[in-house]
């Protein structure tokens, strides 16, 4: 074994069962699923939160402020633990009340829920900033045309704020993909946890962690590429600010 290349046992990464490549890829798929689900859920919460913060009554506004403040002040890891246990317990409690009995909540749903709640607060802040960046005159013009508030929202405010929101939203997508790694701590078998299991049982720690790093990096770089295309499309007709 004098050849340095053969120090690395590449066969460990093979896709079939003696190798762990298939397990890693399944972990990556789990991570991506949770990231997409959590991001979409966060986006819904974010649109609601931003509208609540900007157009809601004083109490709605304060409650939204509490939500975003808490999420922005407490580590994601702590939030994920709290929401993971509290969320599943609360759901089982409610189901028990209406007589369905306890259900076993899948890790996937719980993961999407916790990532979504965390992302929701971040998205709220990004969208609020973007909506505030839309020139007031445009919204006033829409109102002057007699559009209903809902129509102003869907026809003017949301499309006009998109170019301002896309940089922040795309960063949040990248953060969502990386936050899925935290679910390893609650035992959901996403990429980081299966990597650790693979590394632990084969003792090839460096190889597996580097392999997982490459997978995450690929995900980031591919996302980056797509984001750039979307950004170029969204900024059509925009004056470039230097």
């Amino acid at each position, binding site marked *: 074994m004098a050849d340095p290349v053969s120090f690395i046992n590449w066969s460990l990464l093979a896709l079939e069962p003696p190798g762990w490549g298939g397990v890693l890829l399944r972990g990556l798929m789990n991570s991506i699923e949770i990231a997409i689900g959590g991001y979409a859920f966060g986006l819904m919460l974010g649109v609601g939160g931003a509208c609540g913060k900007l157009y809601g009554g*004083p*109490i709605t506004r*304060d*409650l939204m402020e509490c939500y975003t*403040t*808490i999420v*922005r*002040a*407490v*580590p*994601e*890891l*702590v*939030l994920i*633990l*709290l929401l993971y*246990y*509290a969320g599943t*317990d609360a759901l089982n409690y409610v189901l028990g009340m209406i007589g369905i009995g306890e259900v076993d909540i899948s890790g996937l749903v719980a993961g999407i829920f916790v990532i979504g709640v965390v992302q929701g607060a*971040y*998205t*709220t*802040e*990004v969208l609020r*900033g973007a909506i505030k960046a839309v020139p007031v005159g445009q919204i006033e013009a829409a109102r002057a045309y007699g559009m209903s508030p809902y129509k102003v929202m869907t026809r003017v405010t949301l499309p006009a704020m998109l170019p301002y929101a896309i*940089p*922040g939203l795309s*960063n*949040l997508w*990248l*953060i969502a993909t*990386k*936050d*899925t*790694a*935290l679910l*390893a*701590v609650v035992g959901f078998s996403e990429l*980081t946890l299966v*990597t*650790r299991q693979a*590394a632990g049982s084969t*003792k090839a*720690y*460096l190889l597996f*962690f*580097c392999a*997982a*790093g490459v997978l*995450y*990096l690929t995900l*980031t*770089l591919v996302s980056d590429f797509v984001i750039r295309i979307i950004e170029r499309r969204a900024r059509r007709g925009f004056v470039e600010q230097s």
Partner: protein
Amino acid sequence: MSEAPTTDVTTHAMAITPEDLPTAESFFKPHRIVLLAIAAGLVFCIVWFMRWDWIPQYLPRLGYGIMITLAMLFSTSILGFLLAVPLGLVQVTGPWPLKALAKGFCTVIRGTPLLLQLWLLYYGLGSLFPQFPAIRQSFLWPYLRESWPYGIAALTISFAAYEGEVMRGAFAGVPAGEIEAARAYGMSRWTLFRRIWLPRAIHRALPTLNGETVLQLKATPLVATITVIDVYAVISKVRQDTYITYEPLLLLALIYMCLTAILVFAFRYLENRIPTRGT
């Protein structure tokens, strides 16, 4: 003079920054007094109906854990910032090999989860080091057998990469006229950097740096996964010993909220002390 510097959008969305702090008089609105009363009632219920009898027993360990968390935060932020300045600078003016290297470093670190980097260093390098007799006999070995150096290394590297990106933007954003003026005064490159470029860049980046420091605080509990005994690890121990699920986590969230609040107030104090012309 350009407008007052502001926090980067994403950083602001993820971390509390001084601009979010409420003023004292904003609490004296009718609906807020009602909300505060409801919140007080909620806190009372939590204190009264949940189990808190374990606190006195664990108080010394909690204090120790908070100290470790703060030590991790400050050491890695300072070390990370010292690394970030050259990382940002070479990306703006460096020769292309250095530029590519710094950019590659930032991309790789920012593109992978911190938890993975932490485990790569601790389990990966940690399992590699003992195989080399030279390392086992060196004076570093007693430290390399501990887990905290890996935690500090991972957090420092991650902070440096994120900050390097911020500093790149800050260095590039310093108006060219100011640097030309300094050059016209006959300043040498080093004097120009020390007196004009670096202070102006830090001034521009300061709000974002503050936000990133809060984010760094939010990242520290990850070191508990490699057996560093910070406040998060102490709380995990409480949960294992007493089988209580929620109370320790609620206390932990409260501790982090207090730490964040202290940090943010400190930053507001610092920001107010730095004079800004034109505002």
